[in-house]
């Protein structure tokens, strides 16, 4: 029972973390068919920005700083969409990839100048500074906060995409943008909003994860690999698939660490290859047209 609880909490914590980070990536791909490698940059900027806003001792300020980071990074995303991405929609995927890769490198160098090379930390905000013990297994209470935020983000995105006019338009712009434009919808503005939302989600992820980790140059590069694996496994563009992919990677990483520690870092790639071999479009993704 003890081992099961430990594994369960570890899985949920890992999955929640990965889902928050990956949600924006898959949203942007779902609406715009752009694989945004600079997503990791938005994540890193959210994390750095929250350290600037609240300092090392976060306290209550953390809770207003998190949405502030999401909004600020969303605004940066809007600028990027207007200045760069808009010019790439007609381009090949490879061109888009190279462009976002270039953005990632530019943002990385800019971050070095803004925040330096050293590591930064933020303490966990109240009331999540302690630990919780269940069935003899003790884990940080902030893990609960991250899991809850992940669920809220998932439900919120699902509701937005399926229950709102904006969500309907986002889905419509993928399948038939000309028809949507004919209805009077400003598709340019819509795509700017979607990209800003994706960037904002990345910024939110960086800010919310900050108390759990160290913030330093390079986290953009590390996270984009994990986020990309999660979204590919789940199916690019599928929010539910991303959640499933995050859980799958969480399970693989947790069980891999427990039963094959020397191979733990390899297990997620094995899962990636296995899923792509069976369903090249991901677990819940749509087959290519």
């Amino acid at each position, binding site marked *: 029972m003890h081992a099961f609880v430990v594994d369960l909490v570890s899985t949920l914590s*890992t999955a929640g973390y990965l889902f928050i980070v990956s949600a924006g990536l898959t949203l942007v791909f779902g609406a715009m068919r752009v694989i945004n490698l600079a997503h990791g940059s938005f994540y890193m900027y959210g994390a750095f920005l929250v350290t600037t806003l609240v300092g090392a001792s976060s306290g209550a300020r953390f809770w207003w700083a998190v949405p502030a980071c999401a909004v600020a990074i969303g605004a940066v995303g809007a600028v990027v969409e207007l200045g760069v991405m808009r010019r790439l929609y007609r381009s090949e995927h490879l061109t888009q990839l190279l462009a976002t890769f270039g953005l990632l490198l530019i943002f990385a160098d800019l971050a070095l100048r803004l925040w330096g090379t050293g590591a930064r930390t933020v303490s966990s905000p109240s009331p999540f500074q302690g*630990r919780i013990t269940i069935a003899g297994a003790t884990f940080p209470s902030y893990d609960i906060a991250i899991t809850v935020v992940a669920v809220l983000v998932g439900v919120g995105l699902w509701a937005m995409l399926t229950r709102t006019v904006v969500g309907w338009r986002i889905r419509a712009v993928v399948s038939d943008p000309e028809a949507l434009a004919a209805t009077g919808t400003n598709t340019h503005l819509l795509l700017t909003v979607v990209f800003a939302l994706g960037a904002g989600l990345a910024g939110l992820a960086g800010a919310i994860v900050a*108390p759990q980790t160290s913030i*330093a140059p*390079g*986290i953009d*590069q590390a996270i984009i690999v*994990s986020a990309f694996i999660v979204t590919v496994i789940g199916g690019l563009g599928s929010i539910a698939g991303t959640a499933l992919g995050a859980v799958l990677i969480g399970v693989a990483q947790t069980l891999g660490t427990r039963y094959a520690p020397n191979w733990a870092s390899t297990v997620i790639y094995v899962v990636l290859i296995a899923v792509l071999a069976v369903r090249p479009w991901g677990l819940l993704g749509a087959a290519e047209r």
Partner: protein
Amino acid sequence: MTVPTLKPRLLAATAVTAALALAVTACSSSAKSTSPGTTSPSASSGSPSSSAPSSGGSVTVGDSTTLSGAIAQLGQTGLDGVKMAIADLNAKGGVLGKTVKLVSADDNITPATGATEVRTMITQDHAIAMFGPVSSAVAAAQEQVTNQYSIPMFFYTSNDMGLMRGGANKYAFQFVPNTTMEPSAVADYFVKQAHGPITIATFAPDYSFGHDTVSGFIAALQRLHVNYRLVAQEFPPLSATNITSYLTAIVDSHPDYVFNAQFGSDLVNFTKQASSFGLFQKTKVIAMYDYNVLAALGSTTPAGSIGFDRAPFWAMPELGNFPQTFKAKYGDYPSEWAIMGYTAVQGWAWAVEKANSFSPSAVASALAGATVPTIRGNLTIQACDHQAEIPEYVGTIAAQPDPRYGVRLWNQPVFSAPFSDINPPCGASS
């Protein structure tokens, strides 16, 4: 406007994405410049020459190290130490009357990039000595190049024992405790703390440095006849941000001690997450808790845990005013990497003066077996393997901030493991 629809090439594109994402750590951000003496790697023409010193009133040395990404702090502060040493040399009239210029570049933690940069510095900029890098993997690639061109290479951060090849490479010098010396020093300190049967877990980055350091620590424990039981061993990827599953495995094994070979932001990350799991309540962690890590941790610094450091300025009175001078110039106290970088440059400059020549062969010969005056005092360079006879420092993290620096450092006195105690026999590195 239109949005491109998915094409059959999507899979290829996604594969490229994965490759690009994975290659991010291996890419770009080009060479960076410096000053007098620093300059950027030039595009000037010139045939490769391993022995001809730079023309005119100056000579050029190079430093290709990591200036971006997760371990940028190590590379940048180390480079600052090299820069300051060169500036101090030039302020005193240079070396053999010539101004020393420095070319530097970002290796992006990529062996191929680092090797290319070193080759460019030697062939295009006529660098007559090289310093750096952070990663031992990059160092091994760069060493191939410097050896090929017979240019002295001074390692001051990367510390893999394999770099020295048992002294077979005439031109390689190591001014940093190697991967056997460091864990041996920790074990020497640790054995005085640990009494009776104990349980130990290990945690280290999943590459050669991590595995070698853990192996060195375990071997030292066996050599010292410590009564221990290994309860868990985890090797998370370097720079992994999410280490929950690895950490829970460690926490669940309830060790008395965790030997952690992580460093920099990875160690900060581990400590924060381990603290949130309550690991430090019953477990002591042994890790590279240097000044930068302790400053970053702030209130989450784990008092009572054991730190090790290759050159802690606060425990080295022989440095004199160097820490303050360094801080005045670069805004913070010198890291261990800065101190070792400064020392390595001093070693090269001393050898040039001793040989009365910039000839790489003469410099290398002068340095082997010599005793060199440095800011750390007189350092002897072993003739057999070119390892500088320097100590490793170990201590227990204090409960209160040091009033001089506002950071929780180590309790006094700090243990300085003598080189003679932790040095493997010459030739053991081959």
